[in-house]
């Protein structure tokens, strides 16, 4: 049986961290330490200097996608209820994708009604990376992009590549 917990690697037991100043939940500290020490390939996530709940994220466009060669900036915020509520994630870099709208909002079920506290920052970013590889025009957020993707996929992919060249260069 597939369980999410089986994929949680061991945590760093020996890292000392002072919690007094921030009152950050231990889970957020642990997740941050692991993201920094053992980053996901193609993804970087760094906490903001002044707000440990705000992360600056970069995702490299997957090789097998029209976003290859691009580097996409995102912001990720952990609300006070986290992990009882999903992180809030948004693309800062303009992207031509049927499930990401003009404001960078992402249509992804685990960020909404399918959130589970057994998910984490790492798994959320992996899902977003996977969404770049597999655009889903059947469940669109940017309806015009989705329409183009359904009626003329070749043209849509061409536009996505152009946008990647224009807006997503590091």
């Amino acid at each position, binding site marked *: *049986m597939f*369980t*999410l*917990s*089986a994929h*949680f690697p*061991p*945590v760093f037991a020996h890292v000392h961290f002072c*919690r*007094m100043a921030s*009152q950050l*939940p*231990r*889970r957020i500290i*642990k*997740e941050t330490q692991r993201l920094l020490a053992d980053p996901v390939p193609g993804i970087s996530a760094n906490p903001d200097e002044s707000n440990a709940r705000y992360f600056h994220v970069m995702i490299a466009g997957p090789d097998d996608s029209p976003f290859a060669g691009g580097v996409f900036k995102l912001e990720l915020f952990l609300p*006070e*209820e986290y*992990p*009882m*509520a999903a992180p809030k994630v948004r693309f800062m870099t303009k992207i031509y994708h049927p499930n990401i709208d003009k404001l960078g909002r992402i249509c992804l079920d685990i960020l909404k*009604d*399918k*959130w*589970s*506290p*057994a998910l984490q920052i790492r798994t959320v970013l992996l899902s977003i990376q996977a969404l770049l590889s597999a655009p889903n025009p059947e469940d669109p957020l940017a309806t015009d992009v989705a329409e183009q993707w359904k009626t003329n996929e070749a043209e849509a992919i061409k536009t996505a590549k152009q946008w990647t060249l224009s807006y997503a260069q590091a």
Partner: protein
Amino acid sequence: MNSKNMTPRRQMAVNAAIDKDCPVCHCEMVLPTAIPACGHKFCFLCLKGVSMAHLGGCPICRGPIDEKIFKKPKQNLDLKMDMPGSPAPSTSNSAEKEVKQEPVDEDVKPDVNALNAALNTAPSKMYWLYQGRHRGWWRFDPRVEKDIEEAYNHRMPITEVTICGQAYVIDIAKMTQYPKNNKGAGRDVKRVDSNEFDTLDVKGLAGVFAASGGAGSSST
């Protein structure tokens, strides 16, 4: 490592290691509680928080959570149990005598330490309790208790802790606590040593009744 090469005992040990951390708080489980339908385990307070947040069932498999497990829950527990982590958590309590946790901050309480040294005893462990709704006292979750004690030792008049996914304010100056969003629902809190603990009616730990091995009565 290939699981096929493992002896059953070794396999069990590995599973136990994976099991030890709660998937919600990513810390070693406090009051491990299994969802009856699927058996996935979490800290009692983490699971209660999940249930209260209506997140669609078990965090691992989305199976149903029977809310009955939160009604007058009872566990065999050592009311004076330490934080999980240092020694292996014992399921058969009583075997584990109170183990000293980190020493109290020496810079902050030199007088107490000096006194203790003079008495030739280690600084005694302090417990944090909150008032029961009707009577008696509950001990805080040891992890939350440690945070409050830390704040106390840093002379902070007020601190915030998260319980069941909800923020609570602990007013150390006034010795009360209340949900951050509901200042009216305050309860008294108490900081006691082991001797005083034994004189009080402590019902259980973090809302879980002690079925045995506790100080004070364990009946509802």
